[in-house]
């Protein structure tokens, strides 16, 4: 087996090229045909260039949102799977996205309408919900003196998810028809962000999360084999676990507040990537982020074009593709 350095370069180059291809072709796909040549034709003023307007105003924000959300959810999935030593963990396992969903439900149902620096209340409330959920899980798991207990984390996450779901249903019960329609649509997950502003708002949080994640991959390799063994190899387990939990939750919260709970990305993408690059987290983590971005761009292209009379919420597409695919992956061996 070649040295890790060579494998890392190959992995980054391969998955990076895939993402680049998705970023360029994604905005070209849609109900109206546009040509890449005309989009970048500088001789036509932007105001008269319909192709450029469709590319930059209608489609590119959506593609960039897909990239940001896909990368965040896939990377968060990798981290939660390693942290919980469970390949079935997802960004939602610890209740972070349910907390985000509850925040959004409350903001929609109770018409909490304000904007902070151009960001509307629903994504803000959603992000607050995810931070709140993380805070509760974190406090529960750290109540024990020595590090975070995997079992406590898992059970707390499952319980919190069920509890948040009940609060979401309760909120929907109180809502009128129009608000219920909005909340249900939000829960389907959509990348129709409308402009660059929400992306720019989520970007610093995602970048911060990824900067934190970058310190983690080798510690995650060792922690996945057991915390005692990892500590004996020189890993500062408590610090690494806290960093992992915080960064993966931040990434999840940013992604869910931007697009709603888009399912299956955090589960399917890491498993697909491991088939190609193996299990070393120094390869799996960056490859999953890159492939998650490309994968969600692809799913959204399908969501935008598969149905002639409108656009499907991308969450429906990822679940329809991801569900059967993951079942196949499970029985394949």
């Amino acid at each position, binding site marked *: 087996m070649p*040295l890790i350095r060579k494998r890392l370069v190959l992995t980054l180059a391969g998955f990076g090229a895939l993402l680049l291809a998705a970023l360029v072709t994604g905005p070209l796909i849609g109900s109206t045909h546009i040509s890449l040549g005309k989009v970048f034709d500088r001789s036509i003023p932007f105001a008269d260039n319909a192709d450029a307007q469709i590319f930059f105003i209608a489609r590119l924000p959506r593609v960039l949102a897909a990239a940001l959300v896909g990368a965040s959810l896939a990377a968060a999935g990798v981290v939660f799977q390693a942290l919980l030593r469970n390949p079935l963990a997802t960004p939602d396992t610890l209740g972070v996205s349910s907390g985000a969903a509850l925040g959004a439900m409350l903001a929609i149902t109770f018409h909490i309408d304000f904007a902070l620096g151009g960001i509307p209340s629903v994504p803000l409330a959603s992000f607050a919900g995810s931070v709140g959920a993380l805070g509760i899980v974190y406090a529960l798991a750290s109540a024990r003196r020595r590090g975070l207990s995997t079992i406590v984390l898992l059970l707390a996450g499952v319980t919190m998810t069920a509890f948040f779901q009940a609060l979401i249903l309760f909120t929907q019960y109180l809502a009128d028809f129009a608000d219920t329609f909005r909340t249900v649509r939000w829960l389907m997950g959509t990348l129709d962000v409308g402009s660059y502003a929400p992306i720019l708002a989520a970007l610093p949080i995602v970048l911060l999360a990824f900067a934190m994640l970058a310190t983690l991959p*080798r510690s995650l*390799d060792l922690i996945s084999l057991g915390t005692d*063994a990892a500590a004996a*190899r*020189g890993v500062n387990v408590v610090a690494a676990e806290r960093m992992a939990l915080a960064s993966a939750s931040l990434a999840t919260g940013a992604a869910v507040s931007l697009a709603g709970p888009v399912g299956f990305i955090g589960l399917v993408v890491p498993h697909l990537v491991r088939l190609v690059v193996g299990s070393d987290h120094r390869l799996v983590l960056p490859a999953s982020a890159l492939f998650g971005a490309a994968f969600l761009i692809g799913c959204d292209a399908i969501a935008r074009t598969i149905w002639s009379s409108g656009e499907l919420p991308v969450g429906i597409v990822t679940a329809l593709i991801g569900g059967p695919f993951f079942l196949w992956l499970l029985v394949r061996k």
Partner: protein
Amino acid sequence: MLTADRVSFAYRAGAPLVVNDASLTLAQGDLVGILGPNGSGKTTLLKMLSGTLTPTAGTITFDRRPLSGWTRRELARRIALVPQETHAPFDFTVLDIVLMGRFPHLGAFALEGPADLEIARQALASTGTSAFEDRPFATLSGGEKQRVVIASALAQSPELLLLDEPTASLDLGHQLDVQLLLHNLNSERGVTMVLSTHDLNLAAALCRHLILLRDGRVVAQGPTDEVLTPATVRALYGVDADVHRHAAAGHLTVTPIGRVR
């Protein structure tokens, strides 16, 4: 090399002491076995010696410096711990697992280089696991896994190797393989070793010194031939046993006769 001075440990304040006032001294090249019934504190004592658990009372000194004065990474370059069982939730290859032993020797963002690969391959060779290099760890048998985990610990280049029940759940052939491997590592490469075990015959064959633990207390310690007697076996396990030197094996053997009524 390492001294534990009256160390105790409780998992919570006020909880019963798992290890109670234990003292021991290790010299370079020692091969020490820790014996004791289930729940006697063997694993906890090993974890304290490795520095991954901090004693609630007493101090452990390694290379004339208290363990509390070492960083985790510094200590892991000198002391390795082989846990009782290693379960890999992902498809790591054998080489992946062994290379993880290089963790404490690499900087935060450094990747393993040719020198690290060479050390990992030597560790594989000295544990007889070179042939498995590219196989998924999860597909190995129990004995093969145990040797790979020992190889991973050797890749840490430790001076002190701590092993928690290294032969538990292995069949007789694999037990002897691991026994021979540990013997050779100690006699040929001078690795100091402490191992816990329930296998009295393994301890008698391999270890030059024994520490007997019961309810967290050291009830006896010293050279194997002096410490392993019918009286100590009875005191530890409540079992009447015949202890005698086996002519062919050349070491003490323990044959249980019956439970003490």
